[in-house]
């Protein structure tokens, strides 16, 4: 689980929920709709068949009415003749594109009158034709099966012959014959044209006995008899289903029926299915997009935070822009506050270091005070002039050690032993310089020597003790004590010199407790005492610092405590 990202989880969950929802919807409603569309397809096809049946009935009606019109022209007693018949036939042909020819035959099949869209073939006799034989046998109006009309010259159209037996007076003589109207199969083709089927099936016409009258697939279906080894190339009949709709035509002889492919009954349903699948795909893609966008909005602030944290220490500006959800805005605010706090702490630490450096520098500057140096060198000269080389050597050695420590760059701490040594060298020099007008004592507990303490603390205090305590008097003592007490390192500089006036002592004590601004400030007690006090506080804490006590004209004691530190 720890290796899966939030983003992946969000995308996966949103996508999964969307997918399940869409699939459920598609599965449940898709099936219902599919069945409905299939039913709709069947209804449409049925309506197409019905429309075609109406067209067929209209064709039959028109043909029948034209027949009646022609027959009325051949009624006995009206003196029907060739001229009047042909005129009527011509008129009938002109009113119906479906009719190909109209002619009058005698009982033997001989042509009496003929009207057609082309010329009559010379010597044409219908007697040998099958349709004529069938019609003359029944003596009832009949519809023949489709056949090639052989009466025309130079043309061989397919027609259905509608035969009406009649008895009339023809050119003065009694006639028993037949009125024949040849209906073009092109008209039947138009009837069977069903735009709604559109390649998915076809309509055809049969007679009462099931014999095919017209089918648009006459040529293709006829190949069954010659296909042989290539029968598989024929569109299998199983692909077509007989429609359950057949519509008897008005003439009582014909039936309009249909064949439909199985796929035709599923056309709308499959189209719907394809569309719904496309829609499903689009929805999946949109879900994916939505999931990505949503997860990006949520995860982006986390990633920014992660990146910022990763760059910590290398990128200067680490604050986050509060963006995204409310929770991330709050988190970003708290993160920025934390950064501000850290920034403040860093600045404080930097400031402290800077202060320390300044104070150290000041202390060092004080140490390497040219006046002190001149005076010390003068003292050395005087000592040499006084022919006291040993003292001179001692003074030079002490000066060298003093300067060595002064210029040594290291940390802020060194050993207590070094600090005492530094103070000792200073006392040596000052004692020599002041012609041994004062004495000095150094007491240090051996356990304290190995501990660490801030550098150059004792020397400024000793300087003050000499300068303000014993320098103008003689026979006084400066005592340095270093010892351990109460878990702390105690250092004390005592002199039995002039002491400090109480008012001045109070001010000094108050100053030791305050935080003066850094820098080489001078004033009461000199640069050293405030510098020392500030440095102690910076290095060890505000609770540490100098403690000054004094009695006027008696003594002065400056002491301080330090935490025990066994390493720098």
């Amino acid at each position, binding site marked *: 689980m720890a290796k899966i990202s939030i983003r992946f989880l969000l995308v996966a969950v949103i996508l999964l929920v969307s997918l399940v929802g869409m699939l459920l919807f598609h599965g449940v409603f898709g099936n219902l709709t599919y069945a409905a569309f299939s039913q709709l397809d069947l209804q449409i096809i049925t309506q197409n068949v019905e429309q075609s049946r109406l067209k067929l009935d209209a064709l039959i009606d028109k043909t029948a009415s034209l027949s009646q019109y022609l027959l009325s022209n051949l009624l006995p007693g009206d003196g029907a003749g060739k001229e009047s018949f042909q005129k009527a036939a011509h008129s009938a042909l002109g009113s119906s594109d479906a009719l190909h020819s109209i002619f009058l035959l005698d009982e033997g099949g001989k042509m009496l009158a003929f009207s057609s869209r082309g010329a009559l073939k010379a010597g044409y006799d219908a007697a040998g034709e099958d349709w004529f034989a069938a019609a003359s046998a029944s003596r009832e109006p009949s519809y023949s099966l489709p056949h090639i009309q052989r009466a025309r010259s130079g043309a061989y159209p397919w027609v259905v012959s509608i035969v009406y037996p009649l008895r009339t007076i023809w050119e003065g003589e009694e006639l028993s014959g037949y009125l024949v109207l040849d209906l073009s199969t092109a008209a039947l083709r138009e009837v069977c044209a069903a735009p709604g089927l559109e390649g998915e099936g076809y309509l055809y016409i049969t007679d009462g006995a099931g014999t095919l009258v*017209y089918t648009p697939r*006459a040529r293709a279906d006829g190949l069954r008899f*010659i296909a042989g080894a290539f029968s598989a*190339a024929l*569109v299998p009949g199983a692909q077509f289903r007989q429609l359950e709709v057949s519509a008897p035509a008005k003439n009582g002889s014909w039936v309009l029926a249909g064949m439909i492919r199985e796929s035709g009954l599923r056309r709308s349903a499959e189209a719907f299915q394809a569309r719904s699948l496309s829609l499903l795909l689009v929805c999946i893609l949109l879900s*994916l997009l939505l999931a990505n966008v949503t997860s*990006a909005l949520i995860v982006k602030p986390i*990633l920014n935070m992660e990146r910022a944290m990763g760059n910590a220490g290398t*990128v200067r500006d680490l604050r986050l822009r509060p963006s995204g959800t409310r929770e991330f805005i709050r988190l970003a605010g708290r993160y920025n506050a934390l950064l501000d706090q850290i920034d403040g702490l860093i600045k404080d630490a930097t400031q402290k270091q800077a202060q320390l450096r300044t104070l150290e520098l000041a202390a060092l500057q004080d140490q390497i005070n040219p006046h002190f140096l001149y005076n010390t060198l003068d003292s050395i000269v005087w000592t040499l002039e006084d022919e006291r080389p040993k003292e001179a050597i001692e003074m030079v050695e002490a000066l060298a050690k003093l300067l060595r420590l002064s210029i040594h760059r290291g940390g802020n701490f060194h050993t207590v032993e070094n600090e005492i040594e530094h103070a000792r060298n200073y006392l040596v020099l000052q004692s020599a310089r002041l012609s041994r007008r004062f004495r000095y004592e150094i007491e240090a507990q051996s356990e304290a020597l190995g501990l660490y303490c801030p550098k150059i603390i004792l020397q400024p205090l000793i300087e003050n003790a000499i300068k303000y305590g014993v320098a103008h008097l003689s026979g006084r003592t400066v005592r340095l004590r270093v010892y351990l007490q109460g878990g702390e390192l105690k250092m004390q500089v005592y002199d039995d010199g002039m002491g400090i006036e109480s008012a001045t002592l109070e001010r000094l004590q108050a100053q030791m407790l305050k935080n003066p601004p850094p820098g080489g400030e001078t004033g009461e007690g000199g640069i050293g005492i405030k510098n020392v006090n500030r440095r102690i506080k910076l290095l060890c804490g505000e609770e540490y610092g100098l403690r000054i006590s004094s009695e006027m004209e008696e003594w002065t004691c400056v002491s301080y405590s330090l935490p025990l530190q066994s390493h720098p």
Partner: protein
Amino acid sequence: MRKLQPAPAKPSIKKTFRILCALLCLLLLPLLGCARPNSGLWLVCSSDQGFYWQSLIDGARQAAADHHRELNLRILADGEGLSELLTPLVRGGAELVLLALDRDDIPPGFYAPLPVVALGCELPNQPNLLGQYRNSEYFTGQETMQTLKREIGNQIEVLLVTGEEHYRPDDAWEAELRREGGLGGLIFHERIVCYGDANLAYLGCKAALEAHPGVRALICQSESATLGALRALRELGGPARILGREMNEEIALGVEDGLVQASYVTNAYALGYLGLGDQLNPGQDAAGPRLLVIDSIAVRAENLFSEPIVRLLFPME
């Protein structure tokens, strides 16, 4: 306190859109395949005029419709090279190209592998007949010879009227004419080539009949040759009779009138329908198309209006 600037965040929306674009391209790729300009089924014919070509085209179209496919028709133009026609079709992704051509339209040594398939014609240099359909022209020629000798006469003067320049070396006529010293009993005057033009056939036959009034038979090897010979014979009259090919209303009238002794009709509709249907049949052998033999039918005055022939010759549709 100094305010820190936020680190810039990389946008992820661009990456999301790139992924979606890639997905869309994957979805559209199949459509791009379908959009290839010359994909699909193609039928290339020498002509779309006449009973043979129209029947063949009708048959192929019906087969395509029955399989819910669309058939593209291309007629070889005069002077157009076959390679020049086929190359863009094949390169354009044609699934199947049926070639139904006169022999004259096939250059010597022409070779075209699948998806090009010969329908009713022969491609040279295709030794195992893979990719070929063939109607039994040789057998038709033999039948014609037998009819000629049986019904018209044996040692008679004949004219040969062909529609095209080239013919196979084993053509029945050449075999017959070379047998028994060259003529085999027939007096062969000349060969008239009409190049598919009935008018040329008419002019050639008329001139030949005038030059050889004793000609008793005109053996016509194409529909245009038959038409031209019929027209010449109607004009000049005489005892000659035609043994022809294919059918239309004019030739049918010639049969009825007795000027055409017999006309051999190829069921080109079957050739087109079964030929294309076989290729579209899902169960078709993957090795390639098979030999499809469609016999010719001899149409005479006696059987012109018989049921199966009349349906073949005069389509109801």
